[in-house]
């Protein structure tokens, strides 16, 4: 954004006749704002206004109800109530999403690397395979996992047959199942940005590194990884943020014991009709994510990504 304005204020090209210069300069000064206009309007309508509305709702006096109407107030106690009642869900969301993100990274990095650097003419086909799950809806895919992981499914039966695994072993309705679902559903969000940054990686730099006495492991640590850091940061953010707010996986693959903050918000809004609490929880989730992302990006030292 600053870069845009920077180039825009660069002024007229040398050699422009003096009278024409102010017009050209004016047009240039305004063009970045014109370009920003559609996106800005979109954000205003669908992000800023609802957020303000939601912030208002989160401060309603909770003595009201949907039938009797709410009193706009400054009931910051709503936030305290929300934290007191639901901090385990908030924590669980962060932990599940964190674990899922790490697993996605571990699975996704080699996959993206292979597609970007080694796949040759199979590259496009492999990319399509990564995206293929998106051709069915989120809900259906997750329901499919429900039957894959179910107690009388082939997978569990096979695992129960293995030594050291007891007959009461189960996958569905465990934290593992929820995390599995998150990993599965958000893996493409990890792979695609990683692929984009690894695909740009100049093979000649890897050659230079090998020429300068770096073993393959050192080449990875000193050249490949740092140069793909923008992809890592973008991928982890794109995975972690939606995963932390997700409730479908916990709903379908878990039990109330695995419910995440998304489930609570969902039921507060739609079942218990406790709008102020639901709104407060939404803001808490947003704040948690923002804080974690901010700390993470600071550490990753890759501010240019955000």
């Amino acid at each position: 954004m600053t870069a845009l304005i920077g180039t825009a204020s660069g002024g007229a090209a040398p050699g422009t006749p003096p009278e024409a210069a102010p017009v050209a300069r004016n047009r240039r000064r305004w063009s970045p704002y014109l370009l920003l206009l559609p996106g800005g309007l979109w954000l205003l309508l669908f992000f800023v206004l609802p957020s303000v509305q939601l912030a208002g709702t989160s401060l309603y006096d909770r003595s009201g109800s949907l039938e009797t109407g709410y009193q706009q107030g400054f009931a910051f106690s709503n936030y305290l109530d929300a934290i007191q009642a639901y901090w385990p869900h908030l924590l669980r969301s962060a932990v599940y999403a964190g674990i899922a993100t790490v697993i996605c990274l571990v699975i996704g990095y080699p996959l993206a690397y292979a597609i970007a650097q080694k796949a040759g003419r199979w590259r496009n086909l492999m990319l399509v395979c990564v995206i293929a799950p998106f051709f069915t809806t989120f809900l259906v895919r997750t329901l499919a996992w429900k039957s894959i992981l179910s107690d009388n499914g082939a997978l569990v039966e096979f695992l129960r047959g293995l030594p050291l695994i007891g007959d009461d072993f189960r996958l569905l309705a465990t934290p593992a199942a929820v995390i599995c679902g998150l990993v599965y559903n958000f893996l493409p969000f990890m792979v695609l940005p990683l692929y984009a940054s690894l695909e740009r990686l100049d093979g000649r730099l890897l050659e230079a590194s090998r020429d300068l006495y770096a073993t393959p492991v050192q080449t990875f640590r000193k050249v490949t990884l740092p140069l793909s850091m923008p992809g890592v940061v973008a991928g982890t953010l794109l995975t972690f943020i939606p995963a932390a707010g997700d409730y479908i996986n916990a709903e379908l693959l878990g039990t109330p014991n695995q419910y995440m903050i998304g489930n609570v918000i969902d039921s507060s809004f739609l079942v218990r009709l406790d709008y102020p609490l639901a709104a407060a929880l939404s803001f808490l989730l947003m704040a948690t994510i923002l804080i974690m992302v901010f700390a993470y990006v600071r550490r990753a030292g890759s501010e240019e990504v955000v």
Partner: protein
Amino acid sequence: MASDLVLNDVTKRFGTFTAVDDLSVTVPQGSFFALLGASGCGKTTTLRTVAGLEEPTSGSIWLGEQELTGLRPYKRPVNTVFQNYALFPHMSVRDNVAFGLRRRGMKDVAAQVGDMLDLVQLGGFADRKPAELSGGQQQRVALARALVNQPQVLLLDEPLGALDLKLRRQMQIELKRIQTEVGITFLHVTHDQEEAMWMADTVAVMNAGRIEQLGPPTEIYEFPASPFVSNFLGQSNLFAAEVVGKSGDDLQLSAYGERFAAPAARARATAGHVWLGVRPEKVRLTEPGQQPPADHNWVRGVLTDTCYAGVSTEYLLKTPWGQEMSVFSANQSAGEPLTPGTEVVVHWYPSHSFVLQRPDGHGEQPAPQYAADPLGVAP
């Protein structure tokens, strides 16, 4: 012998395309060896096989007693200055230069890196990123990054390509000085013939994956081994001739009905079809009305073009048999250059001629005159 770099019958094929064709060469330890050739003739590929970035399809590479073929690149005591620099964009100049030393486990590298940066005149640039440097500065970083490791062989792939003339000269002197000082074997790839002749102890002229000629610059220039070399390194006038006899140490030649002489010692073939060659700067122009010296080779012609280039004038003339010939004439007197259309006689010492083999059928058409053969497909 200690650690000469030896390439034994090295061949590199990409699919059916042969980039390096059965190349054998010995680069003596501590020498400055230039590999010269047109674009695409396999110079970079040759370097890459030495660096280990490419395995030869067949053949072997040795450094003294140690076989390099099959060794991973990071195990070879060889460093490369890449044609495209390949600097690490996420590291400062300092870290780029320190990279090789650190990978070999050296801790205190600051002093070495500083010295090296001073050597390439980039002392004040240590904290910059490569993207914040000019092309020439990047090239010098690439040089420093390789040189700081003190490899046994330094491979330079057109390291001075992006520099302007002045800096280029400066770096050539600098490179030569560094090379003499540290005694590292330099294998220097270039397609700038002047640079090759100027810097190297030994020049190898490469064409289509093979070495056409190898030797000290003077030898290659004065007595080229093939028409390609004679026109790749400088220019040559080549006449399709037959050997018709011998008198004393000289061969008698006939071309287009004229008689010529050339020393037998400067002949690659002493019978049958040959090329008679002479360098343009060895040829003198006789003004109209004057006679060439009696024992000189001479050719009559009409000037077709005159290029005044300050220190010298380059004349193009057409021989009676329609061949173009070029003559460089040092501008020693203040007179005006001759104008096109003038009838002249050009002549040269027989001892300045050289004689090359000419396969049957070649040269029924006039031979190529100018080095203007960018693809290197000259006969």
